[in-house]
């Protein structure tokens, strides 16, 4: 009962955010100087054909009517045609999205697991050399852009040590598993194709680690400070004086409370991760949505660009709803949404 109302509020609010986002994206994509139809078809195309494309895309109508058409089509899952390749954008997105989902998923998993481990370790050994080491790692993670990590990893592990492939999702010689979910590692596991699984994992490791390091550092700092703050609370003192084993206090009681701010931050970090995916996918030649979006942005392909930004916006909002639900599930005393928004 208690969860339905805040969840409904959250979803309605998300829809409003999405509508505003769509207006912003649409405005950006339509106030471009120059003639997008002419730019798409090139200078040699006869005027009639350009005129036809303008009609087709409603470029001649006032901007709010263009928005109406765009929104109506978008609601039906039709995000228009790419101006440069003339492909259906929705089809393109369906084709490229799984690769990015897989990358982001592994990135978030690395980020969460190793961030929390580092945070717990530095809280447990606080003010020792271990804590200082973690602090230095965290500083480096925060101040280094993910594309720098990507380049340095590539230089060391791909070119220097020859341990990992420099790009793509799977090696040429290896038979890719049949497409079930679109995520190669999961498909390979389902079809029991282990050579493909390990090969895909090898391709995934460097890009997803370079994506996760920035967030990992933030999470380790937040977990550490939350654990230290909670460690001085009365109930922990009580457990300690009652003679509970240190490990049980640490994981069963302390971590469970301290992990709440960590999870809230995970949602925000997901947004940064998606932004950085645009750069990392380009470096590792990862055939995903971000690279597709990057190409669209650089070629000023309006429809593809607005579609990708919209899809990423939706992904970010959904991720944050999930985060809210998890936080709510762990700590029912939190008023859903409020804490995260004000925090």
């Amino acid at each position, binding site marked *: 009962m208690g969860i339905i109302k805040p969840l409904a509020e959250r979803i309605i609010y*998300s829809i*409003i*955010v999405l509508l*505003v*986002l769509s207006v*912003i*994206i649409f405005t*950006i*994509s339509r*106030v*471009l*100087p120059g003639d997008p139809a002419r730019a798409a078809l090139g200078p040699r195309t006869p005027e009639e054909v350009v005129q036809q494309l303008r009609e087709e895309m409603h470029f001649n109508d006032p901007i709010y009517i263009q928005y109406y058409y765009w929104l109506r089509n978008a609601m039906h899952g039709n995000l228009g045609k790419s101006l440069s390749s003339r492909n259906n954008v929705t089809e393109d997105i369906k084709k490229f999205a799984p690769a990015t989902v897989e990358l982001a998923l592994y990135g978030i998993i690395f980020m969460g697991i190793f961030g929390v481990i580092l945070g717990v370790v530095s809280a447990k050994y606080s003010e020792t050399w271990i804590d200082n080491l973690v602090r230095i790692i965290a*500083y*480096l993670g*925060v*101040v*280094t*852009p993910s*594309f*720098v990590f990507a*380049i*340095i990893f*590539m*230089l060391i592990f791909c*070119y*220097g040590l020859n341990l990992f492939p420099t790009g793509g999702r799977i090696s040429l010689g290896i038979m890719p598993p049949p497409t079930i979910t679109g995520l190669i590692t999961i498909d390979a596991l389902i079809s029991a194709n282990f050579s493909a699984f390990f090969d895909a994992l090898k391709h995934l490791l460097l890009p997803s680690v370079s994506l996760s390091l920035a967030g990992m550092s933030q999470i380790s700092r937040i977990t550490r400070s939350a654990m230290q703050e909670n460690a001085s609370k009365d109930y922990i003192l009580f457990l300690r004086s009652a003679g509970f084993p240190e490990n049980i206090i640490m994981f069963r009681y302390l971590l469970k409370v301290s992990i709440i701010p960590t999870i809230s931050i995970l949602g925000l970090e997901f*947004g*940064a991760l*998606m*932004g*950085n995916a*645009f*750069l990392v996918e*380009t*470096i590792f030649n990862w055939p995903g949505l971000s690279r597709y*979006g*990057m190409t669209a*942005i*650089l070629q*000023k392909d309006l429809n593809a*660009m*607005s579609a990708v*930004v919209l899809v*990423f*916006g939706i992904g*970010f*909002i959904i991720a*944050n709803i999930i985060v809210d639900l998890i936080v709510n599930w762990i700590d029912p005393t939190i008023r859903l949404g409020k804490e995260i*928004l*004000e925090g």
Partner: protein
Amino acid sequence: MKREEGLQINKFFKKEKVKNIKRTWYRFSRNRLSCFGLAIVLIIIFSTFLANYITPYPESAGRYVNFSEAKKPPTIKHIFGTDMYGRDVFTRVIFGFRYSLKIALSVVLMVIPVGVVLGLTAGYFQGTWIEIIIMRATDVFLSIPALILAMAICSALTPSLINSMVAISLMWWPWYCRLVYGSTISMRGESFVNAAEIIGAGKLHILFKEILPNCIPTILTKATLDLGFVILMGSSLSFVGLGAQPPIPDLGTMVADGSKYLPELWWLAVFPAFGIVIIVLGFNLLGDGIHDIFKES
């Protein structure tokens, strides 16, 4: 009160102020990491001002070609090596700091007034439609992945240094708005604000003379940290070609150009990347130091 007494009191306060500054500096200097950050920032600022005199090949900063010196690995003559046109990478990194600082300062200086005014207004008119509009707009901007929208804005406008500043600023003001809003709300019920209201001070006086000075420590801390993070975002934009255009020696652009020549000409990408890390690290450590000072006092 006699004039002499007045002067003495004045002197006393002046002494106290000096003492306070000394005490603050002592507290700051106890933290070795913050001092390290301050040193990095000062060295970088200093070197960008004197870039024309201290760099070995200042002509390398612009459109300069010297093919006989091209693609040289790091040596004593060119400590960071040279690029494909024979330009000295060390010189270009130092000049690159200049543009990074320019972006960071412009964005932060553009964003703070907007965020502060909106945050103060929303906080003071809590519970009215003014607050609802301002804070909902803030929420919307914060619920969009910033880098992606900044990239879209940059590509819609023509990519350039100025436009990347505009794009970053558009995504950055909500943080200050929310920060100031939070402090304003917490100060709204404090007795010094009530006292000012009872005396009959105007709304503007209360907002800017009573509440704002108390927000300055938090704003200053965030601004110092943000100088680093704006540089990060700016370098990401220019890395994908949406920031400063060549021949401007921008660090992000240099990393992007250099990454095309991996692994043979590794120094082209690695040293500018190292430059980004150093400058952001400097502002981060400094910001943490400033945060600690205000937290303790």
